[in-house]
């Protein structure tokens, strides 16, 4: 247990919609999770139960309503709930990777640089970053003629592969994957599964949401069924 990569304890999240009569939507209450290196925990449960909310709270694009989110960052276990934004930014740069369903990239930037960007932010030299980006795009079967083009005009499946390559460019110790394969065919799904397996091999802790149960079976080491928050 002491080697846990991610410990979520008592996580709560309620959305308050000021312009809908101040309505409160409780999504998470008392949510617990422990994730170790090399593990891939799959969150399961009906849509709306809060699977994505857990991932977003961990990554910090949702503000947790309470509880603790402990992440092993540079050998130290630090609480992200209430953490300074400088700490949060550093944890995102080095420790936490997050792949969502949709690619969000600056227009006009070539695909290769979109994928290399997280490495450049870490201070990796442009050449090495692009080489790593190319390696990932190749593994994901994205045709080389597309690498110099911005991904905005690509198909859904192509964009999703660019997004996955970007999310895997840095070898993050903790990976959060939110339906990364929703738009992919079987051949491409198995390429993504191989990437996830490699990440587990090198000791990454993976927390994922996968709509496709066969895919979840293939990469998951443990399943966590979520229950509705107390209202």
């Amino acid at each position, binding site marked *: *247990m*002491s080697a*846990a990569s991610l*410990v979520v*304890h*008592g996580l709560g999240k309620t*959305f308050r*919609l*000021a*312009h809908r009569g101040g309505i409160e939507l409780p999504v998470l209450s008392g949510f617990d999770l*422990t994730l170790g290196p090399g593990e891939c925990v799959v969150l399961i449960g009906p849509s709306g139960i809060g699977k994505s909310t857990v991932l*977003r709270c961990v990554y*910090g*694009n*949702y*503000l947790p309503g309470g*509880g*603790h989110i*402990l992440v092993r*960052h540079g050998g*130290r*276990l*630090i*609480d992200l709930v209430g*953490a*300074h*934004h*400088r*700490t*949060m*930014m*550093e944890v995102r740069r080095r420790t936490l990777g997050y792949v969502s369903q949709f690619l*969000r990239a*600056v*227009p*006009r*930037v070539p695909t290769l640089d979109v994928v290399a960007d997280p490495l*450049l*932010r870490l201070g990796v030299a442009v050449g090495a970053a692009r080489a790593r980006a190319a390696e990932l795009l190749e593994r994901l079967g994205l045709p080389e003629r597309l690498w110099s083009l911005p991904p905005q005009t690509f198909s859904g499946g192509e964009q999703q592969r660019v997004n996955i390559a970007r999310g895997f460019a840095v070898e993050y110790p903790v990976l959060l994957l939110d339906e990364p394969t929703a738009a992919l065919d079987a051949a491409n799904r198995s390429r993504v599964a191989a990437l996830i397996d490699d990440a587990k091999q090198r000791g990454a802790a993976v927390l994922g949401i996968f709509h496709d149960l066969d895919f979840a079976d293939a990469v998951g080491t443990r399943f966590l069924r979520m229950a509705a928050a107390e209202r």
Partner: protein
Amino acid sequence: MSDAAALELAPDAAPAVAPPLLAARGLAKRYGRRTAMADVSFELWPGEVLAVVGESGAGKSTLLRCLSGQDEPDAGEAMYRRLDGTAVDVLRLGDVRRRLLLRTDWGVIHQNPRDGLRFGVSAGANVAERLMENGARHYADMRAEVADWLMRLEIDPERMDELPHTFSGGMQQRLQIARCLVTRPRLVFLDEPTGGLDVSVQARLLDLLRTLVRELEVAAILVTHDLAVARMLADRLAVMRDGRVVELGLTDQVLDDPQHPYTQLLVASVLPA
């Protein structure tokens, strides 16, 4: 921490955070009876981009003008950490020293290139001028550096000796950015830098700005009303309304999970792109 301790996983102490580059506290400004800015406080770190968003009249430009020395706030302080580690309140620095700071450490990029460029001299002279203000004297070196900066901003150096009015709007804006960044400022103020440009030109400029900010590790305060621009460029977002900062946080957190009723309205009012 007792809950976490129950798991026998007490967290380590929170990592130390380096001191900020700029710490503004309690900034206020009135024009007659109208409050343009009230109780504005924030901190900014080296290499960090802070976007200030809000509707017209929210106080964004007042804040930018007061910090960049174009206007005087009625109250508050803005502690700036100089290269030697000492901090000064830039609002009480006095005109001469503040102008010196603006020349050596800071840069301003205006919405309208006409406010940031001199149209009577060549494109190259516009960039070289800033270098000379900071002590450069060697003509050939300067010309080489200017050419280098024009190329970085995707302006053909062959056009160095042309006057800015022969350039397109997007090129003028890129020239203004070259003029500002050539002296490697540590803090840059950007006032709606893509405001007057066509959408296709905006994207190109955003990409250039993003790359330069990362390479030079310059801190920036970006005033914009465009949430998409803020999402692309900014690490953090401050939302202003009626002269006050109503919400401040990591850009994606503020946009994906807005807390303040006004931010919720602002985010909900934008057409998804």
